[in-house]
Structure formats: C-alpha cells, structure tokens
C-alpha cells in the first residue's frame, strides 16, 4: 500500500507543479498587462471629460469618440461609470486567463494588450499546452480504474455480455457527465449570473468544455460580482475537471467503437494495445522500481494488465 500512496503523492506533486505553473503565468501577465490597461483606461477617461466639456457635439466628433470607445471596449476596457473598480488583470483574473490559454479554450474577452504580453503568451502557450495535455492524461489514467473498469466488472458479474456491457457503460458515463458537468453547473451559473438563462448556462458549459471558447459568455466578468476571486477559481477547477471527463468520455467512446469495429470501418488508427503505454505511465508508480511489486499494487497501477479484470482487450471482438 505504501507504493500506491507514493504514486498518489507523485501525482499530487505533478498537479501541484501545474498549479504553480499557472500561478507563475498569472503573475507575469498581471505585472505586464496591468500598467497598459491602466493607461488605456486613463486615456478613455480623459476623452470622456473632453467630450463633456463641449456643449455642442458635431457628427465628426461623435464618430471619432465612438471609434475610440469601440477600440477600448475591444480590449476589455469599459467607460461606464461603475466600471472603474475591478481590473481585468488582477491576480485571479490573470490566472483565469492563463488557464484559458493552456487549456486552449481562449475566451478572448481579456487578451494581452502589450507587445511583451503577446510574445510571452506565445512562449507560454507553446510550453503550456502540451504540458496540460500530459497532466490531463496522467489524471485520466488514475480515473480509468474506478470509472471504467470497476463498473465494467460489476456489469459483467451481474450477467451481462461483455460487448453490450461496454455500450451500456458508455451510455451511463455519458449521462453522468451530462448531468454533473452540464446541467448542474448551468443551473448554478444561471442563478449566479444576472443576465444568463439556463440555456445560456448550458451553451457556456458546452462551448467551454469543447475548448471552443467563443467568449461571448464568461463567468465573473460582470461588474460588482461578489466573491469574484473565489468564483473564478471555482470556474477554473470546473473547467479542468470537465475537460478531463470529456477526454475520458472520448477515450471510452473510441475504445468502444474500436471494439465494435467502427474504427476499422473508417480505416482509422485503432486504440492500440495498452500494454505498451501502461507499462510506463508518466506518473511514477511503484512498479517501476527494481523490486517486484506485490500483485495488488500492480493491479491498481496497471489496471488493464491482469487477466482477472475485464479489459477491452480480453473482450472477444468476435
């Protein structure tokens, strides 16, 4: 059991490092972007004051004014009266931004304003995106055992045939994901955000979890949001776990399609056998040591290996 605890510890260390990476990005963004944002805000304020000083407004002046307002708004700076309090680049918002960057969601409602910020975004993304994929993969490996194999074995023990069991399991998993990661968060969002309906909440959840990230709806963006920091952090966690579940769902679907011969039909690369990859997981598990692992631990860390577990490999493809 100690080796299992060790591998969990290592995974926790991995995730911790990921969080630290996000924090680092957030700090850098915050320090780069905040001054530029303040300057832009001051310019718009000055513009507004000049406009108010004039008694008669000409059309040309109005056009100029509007153009400038739009340009500012495109960068997330609003000139409305009660908008001066919260910044788009405080620490929590910068972290949120970094998270959208490495998960490739990319809302765009805040985007880097300065040249340095843009250059940094490029580097940050090039390193962060594959890194995030690695973390997600590592986390999913841990999830496969309780979420896929245990239910499958349970289903098979209750007498179902292996192949329909996979379909049933996939459908159940899908229903679970839709309920927990779409319906419930959508209801919460529509309650917390003033102008969102339930449909808007579902739309937002879907657009975010598919990493499309249009940016027309972003939680916590309205002014005067209470507990904004906590809210944004919660949304970040939701995005990460939701992404993980989507990948798990996708992987299960791929395996199932593989099993039923769909991938061969489309001549796609099938889910290659798992012995290769599961023998060297990224996250350290004890069976990489020179000492022999005890069978129980081996079963936990390589869930697809032992013959006692029902695996996709052992299910006869007929």
């Amino acid at each position, binding site marked *: 059991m100690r080796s299992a605890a060790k591998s969990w510890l290592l995974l926790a260390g991995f995730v911790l490092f990921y969080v630290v990476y996000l924090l680092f990005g957030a700090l850098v963004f915050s320090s780069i972007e905040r001054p530029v944002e303040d300057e832009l805000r001051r310019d718009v304020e000055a513009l507004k004051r000049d406009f108010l000083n004039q008694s008669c407004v000409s059309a040309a002046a109005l056009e100029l004014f509007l153009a400038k307002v739009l340009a500012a708004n495109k960068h997330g700076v609003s000139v409305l009266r009660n908008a001066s309090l919260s910044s788009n680049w405080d620490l929590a918002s910068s972290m949120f931004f970094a998270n959208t960057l490495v998960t490739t969601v990319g809302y765009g409602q805040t985007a880097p304003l300065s040249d340095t910020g843009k250059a940094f975004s490029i580097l940050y993304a090039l390193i962060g995106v594959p890194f995030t994929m690695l973390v997600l993969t590592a986390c999913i490996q841990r999830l496969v055992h309780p979420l896929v194999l245990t239910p499958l074995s349970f289903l098979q023990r209750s007498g179902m045939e292996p192949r329909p069991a996979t379909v049933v399991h996939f459908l159940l998993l899908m229903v679970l994901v839709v309920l927990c990661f779409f319906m419930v968060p959508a209801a919460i969002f529509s309650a917390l955000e003033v102008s969102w309906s339930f449909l*808007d909440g579902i739309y937002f959840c879907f657009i975010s979890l598919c990493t*499309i990230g249009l940016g027309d709806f972003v939680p916590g963006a309205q002014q005067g949001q209470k507990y904004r920091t906590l809210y944004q952090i919660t949304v970040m966690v939701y995005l990460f776990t939701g992404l993980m579940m989507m990948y798990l769902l996708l992987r299960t679907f791929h395996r199932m399609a593989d099993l039923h011969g769909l991938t061969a039909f489309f001549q796609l*690369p099938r889910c290659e056998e798992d012995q290769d990859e599961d023998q060297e997981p990224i996250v350290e598990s004890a069976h990489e040591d020179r000492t022999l692992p005890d069978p129980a631990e081996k079963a936990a860390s390589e869930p697809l290996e032992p013959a006692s577990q029902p695996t996709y490999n052992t299910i006869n493809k007929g």
Partner: protein
Amino acid sequence: MAAPDLLDPKSAAHNSKPRLSFSAKPVVLNTPEDECDTRPTVMRWKTVSAIFFLVVLYLIIGATVFRALEQPQESLQKLAILTEKLDFLTTHACVNSSELEDLIKQVVSAVRAGVNPSGNSSNQTSLWDLSSSFFFAGTVITTIGFGNISPHTEGGRIFCIIYALLGIPLFGFLLAGVGDQLGTIFGKGIAKVEKMIVKWKVSQTKIRVISTLIFILFGCLLFVALPAVIFKHIEGWSTLESIYFVVITLTTIGFGDFVAGEKGGTESPEYLDYYKPVVWFWILVGLAYFAAVLSMIGDWFRVISKKTKEEVGEFRAHAAEWTANVSAEFKETRRRLSVDIYDKFQRAASIKRKLSSELGINASLNQEMTPGKRTLSANLFDDKEAFPGLSLSLTPAPGTLARNGSLYLNGLSPDYADRRELAVIENLK
C-alpha cells in the same frame, strides 16, 4: 490509449504506436520505410479527399443555417443603433453625462452584437454573410472559437451546440487523415535527405536529431513564417502581431482579438473573396503541423520525465544497496555486541552468585540464560538503534526497566535491584 486521442483535433496527428501523450509524427523518429509497410490503417488518398468534401459540405450547410438565423437579428440591431444615433445628433445641445452613458451602453451592446456603429450604414458588409458564416462554422468545429462573431439568438446557440457535437469529431477524422498525408509526404522527403546524410557516416541518433530539426524548421517556414508575412502585408499588423495570431490560431486557443479577414467593408481588396477560404485551408494544414509539434514537445517532456525517473531509479537502487550493506554490517556488529554483553552478564551473574553464597542470600532466581532470555537481551538493543542507547539500557532507570518488560536478566529485576550489583556490572563494562 492516450486520452486526448483521435477524435480531438488537437491530437489527431496520431497515426502509429501510441506514446503516453498523443504521439508525434512517427515518420520523424522512425525510418520511413517501416512506416509505409507496416501501417495498414493509413487512410487512402481517395478516402481523405472524400472526407474533405464532406467537411466542406457540412460547413456550407452550417453557414447557410447560421445566416438564416442571425442575419435578421443583426439588421434589427443595426436599425436600433442608427435610430439612437440620429436622436443623439438632434438633441446634442448640452449633453449631460447620463445621456452619454446611455449612448455608450448602446454602443457597447451593439458592438457585442457585432455591429460597428461608426461610419455609414450603406457600405457595411454583414457579419453573417455566407463567407463569414463559413469562417465562423470553421472556427467552431476546429474548436478555435475566435469569438469576434458569435450567435445571439437562442436558436443560433442551440444549433451551435448540436453543430459542434457532430462537427468536432468529423473534423478530427479529417485532421487525422491530413496528418497522415502530411506525414507521408514529409517522410518521403526525409528519406531522401537521410540517404544523403548516411553517406557521411553519421550516427543514427544524429540523423534523427537532424531530421527532427529539419521538420521543425521547414514546418515553421511553411506554416508560420510565410503566413505571418502574408498577414502582415494584407491585414496591416506588425510582425509580432502576425506571429501571435498564427500561434494563437494554430494551437486552437483563438482569442479573437486578431482575426484574419475581419477588415471588411470599404477597404476590401479584390482578392478578398478567396482570401478567407485560403486562410481556412491554411488553418487545416497548419493545425495538423502544430498538433505534431505539440505532441513532440509532449514527448520531450515524457522523455525528460522518464530519464529523471531512470536516474532517480538508479539513485534509489544505489541507495537501497547502500542501506542494505550498512544494515547488514550493523546487524553483525549488534550480534557481536550482544554476545559480548551476554558474556559480561554471565560473569556478573557468577560474581553475584559468589557474593550471595558468601552472604548467604538465597538467590532464588534462575541464573541460567535460557535462549528466551538471550533473545530478550538481544531484542533489548534492537529497539535502540544507536550505540549510546546500549549504555543507557544498562543503567538503572526504573522507567526503562519497566518499559522493556523488565529486565529479568540474571536478577536485574526492579524488585531485586541492588545498587551494589549494578555498580559491579557497570564496572565490568
């Protein structure tokens, strides 16, 4: 199977034995001849083009539907903002701040709906005409999601969800196919280069490294540098902004602060009509390339972690060996020491017997060191790992004696703790 797998456009360049993350383009790291022979699952050219046409058709259908849903809404918004502007102009004397705020709010909400209130209304192109809708549909199914255009009607949003649900896997298949083809083409080129290099008798790893470098360089030139120059020229962005746009788009992040082809309206040059489709095609191929690059970086991470793991594993093996040696030595020393102490105890016992027989004290205790007592004395020192502990256990600390299940060793029980005897034993040490 790695989780970000085939059906996800970002990882769809996978086409052979998978690594832990999504796999890199294998042609770079394996000999290309192997690739062509042993991969029966490579899609044929015809299949790829068939899927390509299917995707284009799907996009056209999506574009038409979006246009039908969004354009009426857009015209309504346009009308509203124009009316607002006219009212403002007629009442422009002594503008107070509340009116200004209202105006700005209207402007902002109009912009969010995609309408630009500046300029005249006559020569503005719609944001939801066919080519723009096509572009929008493309951004949805590639999961880039710029966001400069987004659906505002309820019907548009619901349709967007369903559209994406079907379109993203579809695009994933396409990307896999494109990646395959790209890999094959590139692999053939690399094979020729490698044949030339082999003549120079360079080692295998060096060949691999060189081919990786060539892949990165060539790909960057074709898919990053060249489009950046084109964008800079057409869109009027700076160099950094062009590269920024290329990277942000090809990693499918897609902020939307810069979008190619956004600058419509009066300044549109004649070749704008086929500019957008070319951009979309570039996105398609560039995505495959970037997926390969990102998975290569992921593989480097994995190799680094594996190397670290190996080194750590080696280190741990050495440490285990060392500790095993040290503890074996330690046990040996303890054994010798316990034998030593046993001898001393025996001598102390015999002395005590002599004393007690002389003094007439009836030593009723069993003086023999049975094996049980011997292990007891040995175990006495097992708990205390350090040498100083040994001396401590011999001194009469009543607590210690009681804790260790009392030292019934040759009469050293608390009941019989005679200071004289203990002093004798101490002197014997």
